[in-house]
């Protein structure tokens, strides 16, 4: 039992640590709904992964990136308002995923685990995936921190100064897709966005610089995972939602108690 909890903790911490900094970008660029859309489509990735018998994480990443590209293309055509477009894609891909899963007669899929996460079902391979993917995300974030931030602050200025803005935007989407793929096991497709944006939003109250906000978001995410796991162990509550509830409590604390920003 303790072994299981330990693995869950290690996995959860890994996910929270990368979801924090990326969540900061999601908050800054107002991409919360975009993240949601990608996350919802991840279920379709799972179904397709089973269908074609390929690695699930890989299927999710490919599908998320594909969807992100479709989204950007449609956005440029200005057919319909972006939030409407996101709503259409999010829910139709989620529904498509659910329908596709129902066709998989010969495989039993624990749907609840994919929707809301099941931290305790995490395997050793999952932990490897989390840490492999997580390290890749962190490394890319550090390597491209300045261009990513410059683009976030002002795309036109960044472009005039010679940053390859289109490529950087694509990189950010790829990173979001990666995080979704590795975080799905922990909190499920419906709650992934919350693990990115709640710690980041809480961190905003406590920080003065982008780096501070990203690292505090990481720490708060890890704290939420610890709290959620403990609550789950104590009261036998579902782990994914417990982690999110914990993050939400931290958010409430930060914004109601008179904390001072770091300087």
């Amino acid at each position, binding site marked *: 039992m303790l072994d299981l909890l330990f693995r869950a903790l290690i996995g959860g911490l890994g996910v929270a640590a990368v979801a924090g900094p990326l969540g900061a970008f999601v*908050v800054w660029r107002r991409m919360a709904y975009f993240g949601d859309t990608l996350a919802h489509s991840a279920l379709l990735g799972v179904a397709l992964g089973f269908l074609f018998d390929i690695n699930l994480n890989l299927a999710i990443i490919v599908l998320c990136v594909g969807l992100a590209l479709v989204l950007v293309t449609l956005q440029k055509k200005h057919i319909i308002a972006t939030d409407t477009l996101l709503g259409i894609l999010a829910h139709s891909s989620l529904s498509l995923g659910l329908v596709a899963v129902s066709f998989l007669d010969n495989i039993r899929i624990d749907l609840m685990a994919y929707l809301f996460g099941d931290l305790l079902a995490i395997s050793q391979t999952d932990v490897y995936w989390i840490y492999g993917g997580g390290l890749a995300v962190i490394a890319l974030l550090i390597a491209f921190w300045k261009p990513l931030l410059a683009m976030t*602050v*002002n795309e*036109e*200025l960044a472009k*005039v100064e010679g940053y390859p803005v289109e490529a950087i935007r694509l990189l950010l989407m790829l990173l979001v897709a990666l995080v979704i793929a590795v975080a799905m096991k922990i909190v499920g497709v419906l709650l992934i966005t919350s693990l990115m944006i709640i710690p980041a939003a809480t961190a905003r109250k406590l920080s003065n610089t982008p780096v501070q906000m990203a690292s505090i978001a990481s720490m708060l995410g890890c704290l939420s995972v610890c709290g959620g796991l403990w609550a789950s162990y104590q009261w036998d509550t579902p782990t994914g939602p417990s982690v999110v509830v914990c993050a939400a409590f931290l958010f409430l604390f930060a914004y109601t108690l008179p904390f001072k*920003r770091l*300087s």
Partner: protein
Amino acid sequence: MSKQLVAFDKIGITFNDRVLLNNIDMAINEGEIVTLIGPNGSGKSTLIRTLLGLQEATSGQLFRHKTLRIGYMPQKLHIDPTLPLTVKHFLALVRGVDKAQILPTLEKVGIAHLLNSQVHVLSGGETQRVLLARALLNKPNLLVLDEPVQGVDVNGQVELYNLIESIRNELGCGVLMVSHDLHLVMAKTDTVVCINQHVCCSGSPQHVTKHPEYQALFGVPGADESIAIYAHQHDHVHDEHGDVLSANDKASNNTAPSSHANCHHA
């Protein structure tokens, strides 16, 4: 003759069958201040965006000198309030910036005391100066300023124009400015280009203000009190750095709304 940095050759832009720009000829030389004027919707911003490479011309050609390096100052700066960012960090985002140059550049534009201020609490004039500093940090030989005095009161506008002129004198760079207000900007301009989809007229400020097409758009100078007659003021001595630096600059870290210690009355 000084180096020609940019030349527009019959540039035209058509978007969805709407002509935004038509047959634009224009050039900017090193050391020259060119001001672009024109009514709303006349294509000033489109022209600038074309020069910056943010928009493609549909006809004509744009020549850029091979040494051209643009410092761009956008009309305004919107930074999402969820992004904590100090002036120092904002300026450090310039591609390939020499971080040691940040403070001297801020001194040059007269806001060294704002180094550690959050960008969200700056006044209109302070924001413009931060943007100007960012443009300068790109080590430009052409400054492109899109309505550089927007949201700045008249005194501040005069100060900013003086500052821009002194920067031109110091760096010898070309300057392309977009402006609405005619009388203040003309005093500092070598060449005025008045556009309304096409180039209505261009030349020295004196020449342009006498031009019938200019007068049709902006009225006859002197006929209206709001358009004062322009004049060079060569006897004018002005401290372009502004000397109202407050003593308690150290408090500028504090972003609480009650703190006005770093308020710079530009």
